[in-house]
């Protein structure tokens, strides 16, 4: 999957749904390679860029976070409609992860009760219905259970080397194939060797 066959400069984006922003922190860990990235593509939408509306004709997007509320839902549908390649970026997007820890509690009312009343130290109350606060969905869902996803980059967070590997593959950068972008075993060598077998 490469978006570099286009004549024009590739347009890439990053999106932050329900997650802790740790994946974006890891993205920033790309450090000086971010300058390389800026040479290769335009970053047209991102939490770290001041763009209000998700634009049309995006070539690739990294989506951090699960789909947990109505805002997330609206945004991810728009993202899918306007983007060629959607990458689930990090464990919340891929599995629901910590964000989905609320799911065993059942419907949102129970979740809010648990968080704001049962666990409150003093005077717990559920935040009032304000139009600016998006409503929670009945369940937190991984991105691919809401829209079609083209690639999965798991990790909590995925480390910068693997993010770079995926971006390079998407942008068609010629590199020795030391890391398979979609299933980067290299980055997880630690997990494999330490499990005690």
């Amino acid at each position, binding site marked *: 999957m490469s978006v570099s066959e286009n004549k024009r400069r590739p347009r890439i984006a990053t999106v932050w749904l329900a997650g802790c922003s740790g994946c974006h922190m890891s993205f920033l860990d790309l450090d000086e390679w971010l300058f390389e990235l800026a040479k290769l593509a335009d970053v047209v939408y991102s939490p770290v860029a001041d763009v209000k509306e998700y634009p049309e004709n995006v070539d690739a997007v990294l989506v951090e976070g699960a789909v947990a509320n109505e805002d997330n839902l609206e945004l991810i549908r728009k993202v899918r409609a306007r983007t060629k390649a959607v990458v689930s970026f990090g464990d919340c997007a891929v599995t629901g992860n910590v964000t989905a820890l609320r799911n065993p509690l059942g419907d949102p009312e129970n979740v809010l009760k648990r968080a704001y009343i049962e666990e409150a130290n003093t005077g717990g109350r559920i935040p009032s219905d304000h139009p600016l606060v998006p409503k929670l969905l009945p369940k937190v869902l991984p991105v691919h259970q*809401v829209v079609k996803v083209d690639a999965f980059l798991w990790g909590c967070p995925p480390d910068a080397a693997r993010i770079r590997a995926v971006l390079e593959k998407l942008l068609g950068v010629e590199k020795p194939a030391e890391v398979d972008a979609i299933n980067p075993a290299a980055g997880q060598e630690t997990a494999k060797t330490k499990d005690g077998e």
Partner: protein
Amino acid sequence: MDQNELQAIAEKERKSRKPIRVSCCTAAGCLSSNSQAVLDNLRAEVKVAAIDGRVDVCSVGCMKLCSRGPLVRVADGGGRRDQLKDAVLYESVQPDDVAPVIRAIVDGGRADIPVADRSHPFFSRQKPIVLENCGWVEPERIESYIEAGGYRALHYVLREMTPEQVLKEVTQSGLRGRGGAGFPAGVKWALVAKTPSDKKYVVCNADEGDPGAFMDRSVLESDPHRVLEGMAIAAYAVGAAQGYIYIRGEYPLAINRLQTAIRSAKRMGLIGGHIMDSPFDFNVDLRIGAGAFVCGEETALMASIEGKRGAPTPRPPYPAEHGLWGHSTLINNVETLANVAPILRNGADWFASVGTEKSKGTKVFALAGKIRNTGLIEVPMGITLREIVEDMGDGIPDGRVKAVQTGGPSGGCIPTEHLDTPVDYESLAALGSIMGSGGMIVMDEKTNMVDVARFFMEFCMDESCGKCIPCRAGTVQMHGLLQKICDGNATPDDLALLEDLCDMVRHTSLCGLGQTAPNPVMSTLRFFRHEYENLLRKEAILT
């Protein structure tokens, strides 16, 4: 006990019979529609009418037409089966109907209550071998079974045949396991017989659990001695001295009748040490299941008998090699063992003359569903589904047959265009179903086939033991996808995923429960795919 004594018992039994015999079904089906009260009333009214000198009232097993129970048969000629031309089979007899029935006996006529047509194909097309005594003998009286020729085969085997000759006879008969898979019984017996083992066991699998199936229950409630005799013959052939009947706890009446049967057989020396004064010892004990369907799987069943958690273990090793407590063990289903005595009594050739080339003998089915006549039928192998459904079952009252389900949660749905398929192991398997243990459910055109698949998947999900992952977690996901399709929330991707799951669960599950759990889905997909597709939507919606 020898041949003469057996005959003396039979003779005494015959002589004690009164000219008129009133039989009331007290198997579970009729009991559930109050036949015990009918029987009690019959006994009381016979005394009141002062005809107890010439009328026997007896409690018998299943008289087949379960949908019209309670059934009461009035026969003269001392209840001899060859003199039954004028016997009357009353349907749906209520306790209040007893008085007119008795009056009719006194007056010599028929009571004005519905009577079953005994020339109807439902009865006339039956070929009773397993059920030959069913509804005739009194299940709680061993004398009644002996009068019907019972224990004669065992006597003959013990006196006149070597174990090898018995094995040869059973092998030649072509009898195949009636539990569902159809493995040749003779081969299974020979495997156990040839396995060196200081102890051997014979186990009767009476853990019948398919939804809608009640063949084995009927046999055990109606003619329990037949199974004991079959087990004893099997034990003699393979060299076992101990038998277990593993029966589900949900069959209290069958358990009760088996206990009575074992007790009376022991008392007469037909079970126990030195059976019929021969050197052959054979004891039988009951082991009662605690409500797990998977315990019908033979390795789980053995674990349960041993007092362990009822979970299957990988085969091989098979029970013949490594069975109960590590000893060689023969496991046969109730119906298989019920065929044994007649085979030894009448010979392998007689048995092999019934049925088809590869499927010999008969098969008992619990005919259920949307048809007119439901109940217990025993038919020769090779009969077509159409004959069963349209002739014997008399079709569907308002509508047409859509499919026939055989094999329960391990089986499949056969559509109406294949109704001319003969009932034998291979033909049913070729249609993606199985012979199974004998459940047969007829469905009409209003039936939602996806919902049928969902129902069976729910059953498998609830009954999965949880040991292997494909069955434990796979049935949950398959059920979820089927529910999603039924609810109209699924996409073509969901259907594709369901099919992938079916393939995986079938090929990777540890035991038969998981391996066959996808069958109802795969067979409905094969013949009724459009019903699935009609329920799909293009775009996913959030659930």
